[in-house]
């Protein structure tokens, strides 16, 4: 028998508060994660050897180490060199770094799939290399990278729960507190899980719409 009072009066209010924090974490991470991905991938493909090497190193480091370790370093490690971030900012910073590293791989692949003639034609019209990258290559690459970047956004929604480890009380954290206090882990985490499933489903739908909106005949069908 499901205890309705427990659900509506005890569990729901903190979960909703946590959900708001989760949404804020995601909303702050997505645009900067995308921007980081664009910068890193562009630097890697078009930068001079030094820039390209730095971008590649960035990807190797942050793709190759656990996100949780990165979060701990940002939140617990940085104060030792005088940088103290709030749990929320520390979490968002970690998410952006990680999300950016993965995004950059999708975008790099997409940049490399743009036919070389596109750049040549842009240069022949008198565009600088920078103008050609910004106006011709990146728009095409980003359209092609939407499915990959969408996947990363879905992952981001789920790994945003790691913010709880930095005492940033988001959805999972709020659930954990209630579950421990009332010792009702099963029901609490089933509901938390359902909420994530709901978020991911909605995000998936929105991203598919976005993909359709930006679809260009011949570029992506």
């Amino acid at each position, binding site marked *: 028998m499901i205890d309705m009072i427990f659900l509506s009066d005890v569990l729901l209010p903190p979960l909703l508060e946590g959900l708001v924090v989760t949404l804020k974490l995601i909303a702050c991470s997505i645009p900067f994660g995308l921007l980081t991905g664009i910068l890193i991938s562009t630097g890697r493909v078009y930068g001079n050897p030094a820039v390209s090497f730095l971008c590649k190193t960035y990807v190797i480091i942050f793709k190759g180490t656990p996100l949780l370790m990165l979060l701990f370093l940002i939140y617990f490690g940085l104060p030792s060199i005088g940088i103290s971030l709030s749990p929320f900012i520390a979490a968002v910073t970690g998410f952006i770094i990680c999300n950016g590293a993965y995004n950059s791989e999708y975008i790099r692949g997409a940049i490399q799939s743009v036919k070389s003639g596109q750049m040549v034609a842009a240069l*022949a019209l008198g565009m600088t290399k920078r103008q050609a990258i910004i*106006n011709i290559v990146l728009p095409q690459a980003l359209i092609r990278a939407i499915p990959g970047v969408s996947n990363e956004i879905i992952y981001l929604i789920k790994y945003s729960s790691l913010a709880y480890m930095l005492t940033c009380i988001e959805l999972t954290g709020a659930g954990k507190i209630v579950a421990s206090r009332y010792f009702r882990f099963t029901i609490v985490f089933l509901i938390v899980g359902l909420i994530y499933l709901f978020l991911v489903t909605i995000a998936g739908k929105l991203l598919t719409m976005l993909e359709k909106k930006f679809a260009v005949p011949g570029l992506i069908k």
Partner: protein
Amino acid sequence: MKDNIILRVEDIHKKYGKTEVLSGISFEVRKGDTKVFIGSSGTGKSTLLRCINQLTVPDSGKIWLHGEEVTHSQKSINYFRQRIGMVFQNFNLFDHLTAVKNVEIALIKVKKLNKKQAREKAMEELVRVGLKEQADLYPAELSGGQAQRVSIARALAMEPDIMLFDEPTSALDPELTGEVLAVMKDLSRNGMTMLVVTHEMGFACSVANEIIFMEKGKILESGPPSKLIREPRFERTKQFLCKLGELYGDIGR
């Protein structure tokens, strides 16, 4: 007469690895000239065109546009490229932009026209190549011939002093070739200065004032179509023209 010279190409050399693709090419182009480059594949015709706007940087030699040096121009190369239009074999239209946006993007980003001016100019150019109706179609929705005409319009919109055509009809079937050649003939007759790499000898005979036969990175011989086709000086030129004749029928001998 000397100030009528638009483009001067002076002893251009280019090597890829050990292969010398261009070994000392020189010629001059006067305003309103249409020069057609012929020769078998791998003789450096396309490389030569790409050297003119520095998409390929030659190893040595100089190129002058209106008396200003294009080679070694560093940053001002973008200024020269605006004045040298180029049309490619594979069209190279920007895949994510509609026909009209393909034409206007460089007007906005390079020539710094505002959006309204750019749109007007772009539509004007599309009308000129007979594609007003296709303005809002994407490259993938155009036929090859239409796509090539858009790419010509895109180059023309920059109001270049000279147009380079790199095998503009090689990727097209015969019917589509006709519509592209018609646009090019029109341009040539209206006084556009053009360098064309093509094997369309009908086109060459009707509008070129000089045909240049290239062989192994050099200009073997050149002359007005009537002369070069009727009485080529070299056996090699004769052979090549014969082969073209076999493939495309009588080429105006």
